[in-house]
């Protein structure tokens, strides 16, 4: 009976209904040749984050945090510096006057000329070192900065209201920080629906990746 069962399974097991299974390309290489090619390419073409033009990218981390990374090429950086400015005797004062700055906007960048100076700014300025190329942005606790869409500019700040943007980011959407536990929900539905913890426990996440425990 076992032999019959196995024969039927062999002959009549369901097959892929779509295209034929991928046909292995003829192995015209020895293992050593493949390895040599792989190593040569890895050595000669290793990735480098070099860009020809200035760029700024904004990524969402969580309701209160963004990650920004950027590349500024030499020419745009010198363009941003106010080379016509009068010489300042105090070098420290000069450095403070021209500070590389990451400006993060809620929603969309506001044109400088439309800013009402009487209102509190709708952006935050983060001074960054010119040697830096990435920055984690922790948003202020005020509700005005809760969730929503953000953009950023990186540029040179020449003083309180003078900012020259060198690169503008993409839009990054942050989730709302508050769970809407109440609004319209019955107590019973809310009680069951509210996450016990906001995410998988460590054991849960580890389970999808055998390698996590494989080395123990």
């Amino acid at each position: 009976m076992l032999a019959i069962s196995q024969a039927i399974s062999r002959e009549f097991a369901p097959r892929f209904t779509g295209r034929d299974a991928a046909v292995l390309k003829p192995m015209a290489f020895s293992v050593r040749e493949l390895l040599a090619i792989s190593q040569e390419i890895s050595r000669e073409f290793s990735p480098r984050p070099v860009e020809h033009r200035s760029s700024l990218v904004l990524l969402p981390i969580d309701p209160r945090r963004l990650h920004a990374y950027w590349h500024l090429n030499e020419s745009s950086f010198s363009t941003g510096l106010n080379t016509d400015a009068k010489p300042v005797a105090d070098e420290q004062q000069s450095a403070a006057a021209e500070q590389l700055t990451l400006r993060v906007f809620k929603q969309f960048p506001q044109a400088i000329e439309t800013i009402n100076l009487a209102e509190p700014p709708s952006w935050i300025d983060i001074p960054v070192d010119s040697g830096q190329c990435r920055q984690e942005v922790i948003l202020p606790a005020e509700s005005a900065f809760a969730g929503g869409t953000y953009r950023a500019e990186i540029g040179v700040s020449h003083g309180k209201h003078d900012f020259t943007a060198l690169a503008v980011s993409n839009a990054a959407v942050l989730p709302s920080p508050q769970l809407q536990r109440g609004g319209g929900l019955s107590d019973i539905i809310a009680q069951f629906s509210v996450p016990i913890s906001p995410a998988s426990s460590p054991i849960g996440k580890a389970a999808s990746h055998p390698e996590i425990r494989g080395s123990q």
Partner: protein
Amino acid sequence: MNKGYLSIVLHAHLPYVHHPEYDSFFEESWLFEAVTECYLPLITMMDKLLEEGVDYRLTLSLSPTLLTMWRDPLLQSRYLHHLQRQLALADEEIVRTRHQPEYQKLAEMYQQFFRGALCSYRDHYQCDLAAAFLKHQQAGKLELITTAATHGFLPLLNTSETVVRNQIKVGLAAFEGCFGYRPGGFWLPECGYYPGLEKILAEAGIEYFFVDSHGIMAADQSPNNGVYAPLNCGNGVAAFGRDPASSNQVWSAQEGYPGDADYREYYSDIGFDLELDYIAPYILDGKTRINTGIKYHRVTGNDLPKAIYDPDRALAKARLHAEDFIRQRQSQIAALSTEMDRPPIIVAPYDAELFGHWWFEGPHWLESVLRLASEASNGIQTISCGDYLDLHLPLQTATPSASSWGEQGYSSYWLNDSTDWIYPLIHKAGAELEKLVCDLQGLKVSNLQQRALNQAVRSLLLAQASDWPFIIKSGTTVEYAKKRITDHLARFNYLHDAIRKNRIDERYLTALEVMDDIFPDVDFRGYCPEREESGR
């Protein structure tokens, strides 16, 4: 009469690990362990339920990388070799434990287990696991769905819609190439969602996806039914939310079933426990200790002597835990039914590899859950989310909140101090590919150029896998994960450079096609946004 629905969703995924450039490669054992301990036991369970006519519905998400590895002849032959070695070790163990009857009984259990796996894999299913699952889909028991091509974490690839679209479209095409149809459901890698993703899913013909509980609870409109009814994202695509309670009962390190003292201990493996001289032929290079799959102990406290595993006791506990799980769903459904205008649906998604691999008794627990749920008197009906949508109940329109099911609930597990170097590199490569493809639009492309372009897409997709930052953050096989990212990007750079300079070396290209032998039907033209616009 059923008062509520239970939708159990298993997501099966492993990163693409395929190294023909080595005679053997340790990380390929991730797949081999999962086949023996998880995928084959799940198939055996389904075969049994089908044979006995048990009425159930289960959803299984199969990642394109996993499907590719299942079908790869090199990995199939290496798996058979791995299994033969496990059998040989079990044979040796039966001899070694001849004066320890309790251990010998377990060694015999493993011998039987590996023999069963070999028989099922090689003889019964002809090394074709996808066909084994397809049989259950065709029998109406299983709803098969898939995920993004290489399990890219989409919220962090979203600097380009083309990149996200390509992950989704290539994933669906790989599934279709394997099974002959397009799935209605889509597993977002790590449940990573951002508002707007539903638009790309709709374009790809997807009807539903899953988010974690807080994705629903923090939606832009308060969800009237909490996570117990899907939301219509506004374009007809439905979002189902994970049920916190049923997740916690299985996932939680503290309260979860798998931590019960009667279950088998994953960490106590003879690869680490026995004398090096004895175990050397079965470990890495004869000197680096690794898991062998033979484990003799049950879950025991950290500082206590390990207690021996009792399979009968463990299986009895799995049944008890299944009863408890069903009981808790019943009380949940009873309470929810009084407040809802429709039967609640409890969505319980888990990583498939938990079942059998980490939680050895997991497949038995699942089998018992499905059997119990099939009894009409229990008031629970197992259902797939596709079936639920076919009931045509009106859905509340709201957009879920950006979320993931990772630690902290958002993107921080994939974007942090240890992984932030990855994103400038993969974003840059994505932009370069997009520009290259756009530049070639309207130009005649030779067969060799087409092959190089398609291989460049494969290299980039493989670099985008969420697994690499996950491993780096978790601190396990960090160097391997970093190397995979930089190697795939180097391969991309090489191809990009060769195409731009029109100096494609066919021999090198073929070598890359052999090493990264995935997505045979990929079409580089999908990387051009203009084409996508005109195609809609």
